[in-house]
């Protein structure tokens, strides 16, 4: 099993922390994992993205050039990454904030109203968790349970309420997928 994932959205949408959570959960599930952020000048201008690899074999490079999965949280990200997705790859789209649809026909597209769901259950900032829940459900690269268990470890400063909300968001994402 090898999964190269790119997660992309606005700064503030929790793209980086979401990526770390995914990597952490992968590690807990006994996978080889890497997390690689976009950094430096790439960051300017309000968009953020990161790459995560979850694999049963050792990971060569954490740089994901042609992802197996894209988690797209806003409009500009779709334009930027659509073409890099592998043929047959999975695209999970936060339809709350993305109105366009991919032009490619050789990929699998899952539409999730991520931000809407998150807002509904209490905080729009948990949209990243909704997306991850959907991802876990769809690919089984990480277990949904592990994702939820990992929240406390990765966000050491999160209070119980936050943790619960995030868990819920993951579950909702799983359901929506």
């Amino acid at each position, binding site marked *: 099993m090898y999964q190269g994932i790119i997660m992309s959205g606005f700064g503030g949408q929790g793209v980086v922390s979401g990526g770390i959570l995914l990597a952490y959960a992968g590690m807990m599930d006994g996978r080889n*994992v890497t997390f690689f952020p976009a950094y*430096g*000048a790439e960051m300017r201008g309000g968009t953020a993205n990161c790459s995560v690899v979850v694999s049963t074999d050792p990971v*060569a490079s*954490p*740089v994901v050039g042609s992802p197996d999965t894209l988690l797209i949280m806003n409009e500009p990200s779709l334009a930027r990454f659509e073409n890099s997705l592998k043929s047959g790859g999975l695209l999970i789209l936060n339809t709350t904030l993305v109105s366009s649809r991919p032009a490619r026909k050789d990929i699998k597209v899952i539409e999730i109203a991520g931000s809407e769901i998150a807002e509904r259950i209490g905080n729009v900032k948990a949209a990243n968790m909704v997306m991850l829940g959907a991802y876990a459900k769809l690919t089984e690269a990480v277990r949904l349970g592990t994702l939820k268990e990992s929240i406390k470890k990765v966000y050491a400063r999160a209070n119980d309420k936050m943790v619960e909300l995030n868990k819920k968001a993951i579950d909702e994402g799983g359901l929506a997928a």
Partner: protein
Amino acid sequence: MSERILMKGNEALAEGAVRAGCRFFAGYPITPQNEIPEYMSWRLPETGGTFLQAESEVSAINMLFGAAAVGRRVMTSSSSPGISLKQEGISYCASAELPIFYANIVRGGPGLGNIAPSQGDYFQSTRGGGHGDYRVFVMAPKSVDEMANFPRICYDIAFKYRIPAMVLADGILGQMMEPVTFDFDPVEADSLSIPDWALRGSKPEERRVVKSFDLRPGKMEEWNYRLEKKYDEIKAEEVRYEAINTDGADLILTGYGTSARICETAMAQGRKEGLKIGYIRPITLWPFPTRIFRDLAGKIGKFLVVEMSLGQYVEDVQLSINGRSEIYLHKRPAGGIPTGEEVLEVAKKVLSGDKSKFYV
């Protein structure tokens, strides 16, 4: 101690240094290594150590010169242009035999370049970008785990031989997160004995002097022979490398750091496909693992060098093989990161007799 932690390479390196006894860090911000000084800025005070943001890289290396002279385990880090600025100071440390530890989290050069991962500073690290005959102990980690554990080795070597020691890593290794296990017990800095050459304030009869020169006729030549002897000893004793599947291989892939990971993947995939591919990865770039190459040269027909630079690492491979096998080179400078598939493809071409990547 054997807990697995998900850490960023830069932070693993910083934490590794602290656990290895580092108690003084001076540095100047530069991407992609900012997490190192940032980490040190809160971590060192916790241990009673000192973090200083220097006014420049030049100042930072000279703060280390002073701090190392009093016997502390010290560290600085930077990225390519900043490391260039430190070259004079590194040469001074080498000459004055001060054990310092530093890291270059390489970016794409030359000039301001970019902040993408690169291996373009191989020559500078292994040949001395500074002036004069001197050497630096250079380790090239390939994973965040090694980022975490190599500082301790560097300190051990630096103090044993009184030389500068460095970690050379590209931006990937600095920025990525991976699981880490610290494989050593934290060093209690206060329990380290104060070296007998360290400045501490002395009685006149026992006073100590640290300097990097001797102007008396012929003395600087002797000074160099003394250093050379030490370097020869390190060459004999401190080489580290990894060699896999070399027996009976038709082709050896070789690279260091991130390139090594990529070679490893290409090898694994190649072997699945039935190709006899082996792999050598130097862990110390200086001293270079000349012998393992030399031993295989002549026996194995082809070596494919992979580097994220334009033909630097390959020179050491060539110097080791010395004409007894064919060498091929796959190079990507300044942010070009080869993939495993890409390398495997090249490997297949080389195996099939394609000479387009022939180096010598």
